[in-house]
């Protein structure tokens, strides 16, 4: 049974956000017998409400509160009102996610050492390495049921996958497969097996896909130690004279302000909202915002180099049939500066149903040429190119000087300029994907530059030294012992891999640290 805690109960751990980081942390702490209150801005949806409806579920899941954007990145021109794509509901962006679950590579934890100093980039090594995180990756994979790990079979290849793999083989690539996916190929751990419906991003109606909504939140509640409060948007984190955090102020479903006391606060609101909250919690003691003595809160925003290539064939592909993102080519993920850039990229399947494909293919586009591409819909294959982008101090989240949301909280601005390294990688990736599809007879390829950003990282980064970042090796803020960051904003570098498995592994590891420090009375 879900617990119910008093607003004045100052023994609880308050977790802000219930997505990949927050949902996992709640489950881990509750299982250790620690009381948690999860405050989630979005509402709680049940699986029965999910529909195979791209446009409808986008409207139902997405965080649509106002955000602005600036900088040279493509999204400022094509989607200025929605620069990033995250979710607002219990389960966070894991309800939408495609479930591609990859580990970071060893060198990606040590970018400053391995890449050297790069002009215009703010590179830093993570204070941890792959070896240290490996046991937690193991636990995350087992929890999420990641295919291709720990004896869990892989998903079968769809038509869309077969096309990708045939092109990869022809091009001489060797590392391609149906991806490590947090999707059950067969029933496992109380979850159904995948039915190849293809609507993974619209919320899996069979529960084959891992999300914190279906797995971690119910498990946490079942311990009797966790309470999840939906439609509760935190506006401020409060502290006492000594600088320790004491609780949070949030707006409840009715719009009334509430104050929840806390022994510890863990911030897991994602890489846009977490720095926004820290900056909005400034006080006379912390005029720059909480945990911001380094000045790094909100900086080093990373969103991956991304682009998509769609290829038109003579014969049917039906890219929408089957597990959406289950297919990957990993040959370009290596570090090889001979290609003209540092870092690497993955090539991952990206199918779209007709409504999203047609509406997003050519921003602002019209006329016969565009229509002829849509007319070929059944014969089209798509691959998403996703690679490491470099942290820059100037790519950052700031509070808007005058625009506020409905609770009076300043809205965030997302600033991003492409680094020359990102552009060099993008160019390479587009050419390779073109070659891949042309090698097996594509008549034409079409490039779609970045969609609103789905991978958001780095805005409260981890650092060995307090001067270089916001949190330490456990996600604990350097400045305030009982304040933690538990989401993707901890990332010191972005890696070339989708971020979520790493977020989950870090949260599992962080829970051990919090429990240990609590039992020693240190926090």
């Amino acid at each position, binding site marked *: 049974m879900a617990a119910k805690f008093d607003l004045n109960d100052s023994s609880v751990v308050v977790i802000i956000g219930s997505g990949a980081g927050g949902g996992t942390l709640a489950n881990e702490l509750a299982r250790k017998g620690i009381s948690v209150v999860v405050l989630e801005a979005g509402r709680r949806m049940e699986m029965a409400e999910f529909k*195979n409806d791209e446009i409808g579920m986008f409207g139902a899941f997405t965080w649509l509160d106002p955000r602005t954007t600036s900088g040279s990145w493509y999204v400022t021109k094509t989607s200025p009102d*929605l620069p990033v794509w995250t979710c607002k509901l219990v389960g966070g962006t894991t309800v939408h996610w495609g479930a591609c679950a990859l580990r970071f590579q060893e060198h990606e934890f040590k970018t400053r050492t391995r890449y050297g100093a790069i002009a215009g980039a703010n590179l830093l090594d993570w204070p941890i390495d792959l070896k240290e995180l490996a046991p937690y990756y193991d636990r995350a994979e087992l929890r999420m049921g990641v295919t291709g790990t720990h004896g869990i079979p892989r998903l079968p290849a769809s038509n869309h996958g077969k096309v990708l793999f045939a092109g990869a083989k022809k091009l001489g690539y060797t590392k391609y497969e149906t991806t490590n996916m947090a999707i059950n190929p067969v029933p496992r751990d109380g979850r159904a097996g995948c039915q190849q*419906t293809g609507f993974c991003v619209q919320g899996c109606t069979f529960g084959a896909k891992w999300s914190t909504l279906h797995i971690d939140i119910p498990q946490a509640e079942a311990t009797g130690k966790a309470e999840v409060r939906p439609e509760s948007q935190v506006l401020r984190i409060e502290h006492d004279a000594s600088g320790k955090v004491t609780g949070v102020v949030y707006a409840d479903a009715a719009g009334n302000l509430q104050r929840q006391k806390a022994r510890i606060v863990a911030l897991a609101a994602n890489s846009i909202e977490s720095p926004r909250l820290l900056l909005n919690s400034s006080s006379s003691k912390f005029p720059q915002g909480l945990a911001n003595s380094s000045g790094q809160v909100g900086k080093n925003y990373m969103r991956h180099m991304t682009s998509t290539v769609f290829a038109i064939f003579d014969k049917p592909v039906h890219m929408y*049939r089957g597990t959406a993102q289950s297919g990957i080519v990993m040959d370009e993920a290596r570090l090889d500066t001979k290609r003209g850039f540092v870092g690497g990229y993955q090539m991952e399947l990206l199918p779209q149903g007709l409504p999203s494909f047609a*509406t997003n293919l050519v921003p*602002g586009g019209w006329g016969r040429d565009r229509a002829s591409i849509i*007319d070929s819909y059944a014969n089209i294959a798509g691959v998403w190119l996703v690679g490491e982008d470099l942290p820059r101090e100037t790519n950052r989240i700031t509070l808007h000087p005058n625009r506020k949301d409905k609770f009076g909280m300043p809205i965030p601005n997302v600033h991003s300029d492409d680094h020359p390294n990102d552009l060099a990688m993008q160019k390479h990736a587009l050419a390779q994907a073109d070659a891949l599809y042309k090698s097996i007879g594509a008549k034409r390829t079409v490039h779609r530059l970045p969609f609103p950003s789905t991978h958001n990282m780095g805005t409260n980064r981890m650092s060995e030294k307090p001067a270089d970042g916001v949190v330490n090796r456990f996600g604990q803020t350097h400045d305030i012992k009982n304040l933690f960051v538990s989401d993707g904003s901890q990332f010191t570098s972005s890696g070339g891999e989708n971020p979520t498995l790493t977020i989950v592994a870090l949260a599992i590891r962080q829970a051990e640290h919090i429990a240990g420090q609590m039992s020693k009375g240190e926090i």
Partner: protein
Amino acid sequence: MGLFDWAGKLSRRGFLAGGAATIAAVAVTGPTILADPQNGAAPAGLNAEESRALLKFVRDLFPHDRLEDVFYAKAIAPLQEEAVKNSSTRELLAGGIARLNASTLASAGKAYADVADESVRVAAIKQIEGGAFFTKVHGDTITPLYNQPDLWPKFGYEGPSSALGGYIHRGFNDLDWL
């Protein structure tokens, strides 16, 4: 400009959680305001001539010969409704249509919707591309056009599959031409 702006629009209008229902409602709204010219104009919104030109314009933006007019009529229905309720929308649409007409009258001696030569109409569109009228119509019709389930089979899209047990027994891996 597509899904992402469409969603932004929904949120600004305060539809937020009801996004699915709203779009479903849009999709079933019939071409009621695509009145035949004899019946004259709807009182406050676009008149029949303007509606006919708007439909032609959206067809030219998204020209699929395989689609009958009814699909485009459904795509413009939300805009027609908005023009009834909102006089600035009405003015924007009527003004844009007037510019298209003026342009084809000058180049071909006919109102936009009466010009048979597509290249003449396309040239008229190029003159207003990116302006307020173009952007509004483009952004507000693209999603309602392609989000009509009746239209999907014409593009080889089979759509929702959960109720049918997914594609696991319906061809997810039937590709045989490689």
